[in-house]
């Protein structure tokens, strides 16, 4: 009884508080439905300029300056937006060969990227080449399964990062692909690769149970799936063998998913897996709408792809 009264009272006072310059409308009963937007790219591979108009496969597609306009427009509509990248930022055009990733990181900073993970090609100028470009990135890198302890990247890459947007706690961790046989050892040096599935199981437990995150997102560069080698760790295996992950944003396999894939996790809950191919031709967009827990229990959760 008392609690009901309190909510009504808070309704009455919220207008008053707003007048005082504090915006607390989101706490009122009617407008309590919060909304978080996640935008993501992967495998942009230094594609700063759009493809030529006469390109056989991707004419006039992509382009960082266009992507920036789109991101700005979406951020204006919903300030509670995060912009993420799932790795392989580097390598693919002379911009990288000439300037070593400086433009890529600076442009991503101008677009206000919030977080990225590390792809195999991000080691193409060696781990020192990546380290040298970090001052140009106004965003952090996460990787839970690369151990950089004995490298220059030690302390510069965290396993995960937590964002709080409109009171919603969002935990994001990163995963990288096995480097042996893919990248020259002289490039990645003493970087240790740990099993991504085990790392993800640890991370999702930490983020959900210890950090009490409302949303858990995996930024993965392990690849969508491997038909010829179905046991190889991939995003689909990751989705099936873990719990408490809401969204897996993938990369590495340049998989152009027309729409996100919905997989069932180890306890039978739905996990969304998305990957937007490569070269900045697409931006992935995932919107999370929130409601009071009792409404969600009563009405269920819907996923629209």
């Amino acid at each position, binding site marked *: 009884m008392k609690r009901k009264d309190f909510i009504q009272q808070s309704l009455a*006072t*919220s207008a*008053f*508080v707003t007048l*005082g310059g*504090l915006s*607390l409308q989101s*706490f009122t009963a009617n407008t*309590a439905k*919060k909304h978080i937007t996640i935008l993501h790219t992967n495998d942009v591979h230094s594609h700063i*300029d*759009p493809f030529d108009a006469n390109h056989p496969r991707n004419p006039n*597609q992509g382009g*960082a*300056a*266009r*992507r*920036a*306009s789109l991101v*700005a427009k979406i951020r204006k509509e919903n300030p509670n937006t995060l912009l993420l990248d799932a790795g392989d930022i580097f*390598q*693919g055009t*002379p*911009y990288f*060969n*000439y*300037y070593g990733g400086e*433009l890529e990181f600076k*442009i991503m900073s*101008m677009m206000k990227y919030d977080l990225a993970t590390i792809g195999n090609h991000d080691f193409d100028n060696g781990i020192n080449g990546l380290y040298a470009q970090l001052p140009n990135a106004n965003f952090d890198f996460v990787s839970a399964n690369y151990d950089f302890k004995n490298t220059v990247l030690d302390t510069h890459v965290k396993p995960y990062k937590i964002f709080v947007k409109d*009171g919603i706690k969002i935990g994001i961790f990163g995963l990288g692909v096995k480097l*042996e*046989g893919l990248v*020259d050892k*002289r490039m990645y040096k003493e970087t240790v690769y740990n099993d991504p599935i085990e790392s993800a199981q640890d991370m999702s437990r930490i983020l959900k149970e210890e950090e009490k995150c409302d*949303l858990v997102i995996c930024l993965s560069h392990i690849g969508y799936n491997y038909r010829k080698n179905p046991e190889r760790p991939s995003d689909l295996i990751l989705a099936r063998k873990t719990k408490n992950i*809401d969204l897996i944003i993938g990369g590495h396999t340049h998989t152009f998913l*027309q*729409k*996100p894939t919905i997989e069932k996790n180890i306890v039978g809950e739905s996990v*969304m897996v*998305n990957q937007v191919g490569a070269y*900045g*031709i*697409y*931006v*992935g*967009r995932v*919107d*999370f*709408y*929130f*409601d*009071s*827990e009792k409404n*969600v229990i009563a009405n269920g*959760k819907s*996923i*629209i*792809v």
Partner: protein
Amino acid sequence: MKKIVALLAIFLMFACAEEKQSVSRIEGKRININDSLTADQEIEAYVKPFRERIEEDMNKVLSYAPKDMHKNDGELETTIGNLMSDLIKSQSEPIYKKRTGKSIDICLLNHGGIRAPIPKGPIKTQTAFNVMPFENSIVVAELTAANIRNMVAYLAEAKRAHPISGLTIKVDDDFNVKEALVNGKPIEDGKTYTVVTSDYLQNGGDRMDFLKDPESLEILDYKIRNAMIDYFKSTDTIPAKLDGRFVKQ
């Protein structure tokens, strides 16, 4: 008054924390980036001088190709593959010789490493970037005769036009090796041979395991792409030929 507002705000926070929020709806999709979006002017202005600098370089004419050259214009050897392996060998030879006093016997590259054709006409810097977009670097591995035989067996089994130079191979219709010569001479037991290749292959790329554990290894600190550009600059018209270095008879 201010105190009351602050107090209310704190109460509201607690009220909010109690009313736990959870995900009710998820919507996912992709958005195409195309010319319907206007370009952000700040980024455009930032990129412009870099783009102009690169384009000026990329459009420089370095050499001339007498015909279209691509990696499928022959069965077990190709014009572009022969060009690549010959030029990597000739560009690396003086560097290797100066450092070690030894000569390079063989060049081995991989068919998959040729990323674009060379069209007939002027060869620009851009051509080298198209053919070799990666940062792969040149290394020279000294191999035992046994590993040279493993290399020949690998090439015969692969049935692919992996670019070679300094080595000639003849196989029968079933791809059994009939003859393998290094610079015209049979492979001699007890001898070592020097093989110039890419760091990628030497480190296990394309499962060329015979390169993995060489008798000696020299890292030239010379990128494949730069060797191409240097070669093009010094060559008026590049050769585009098949010469029977790897044939089925």
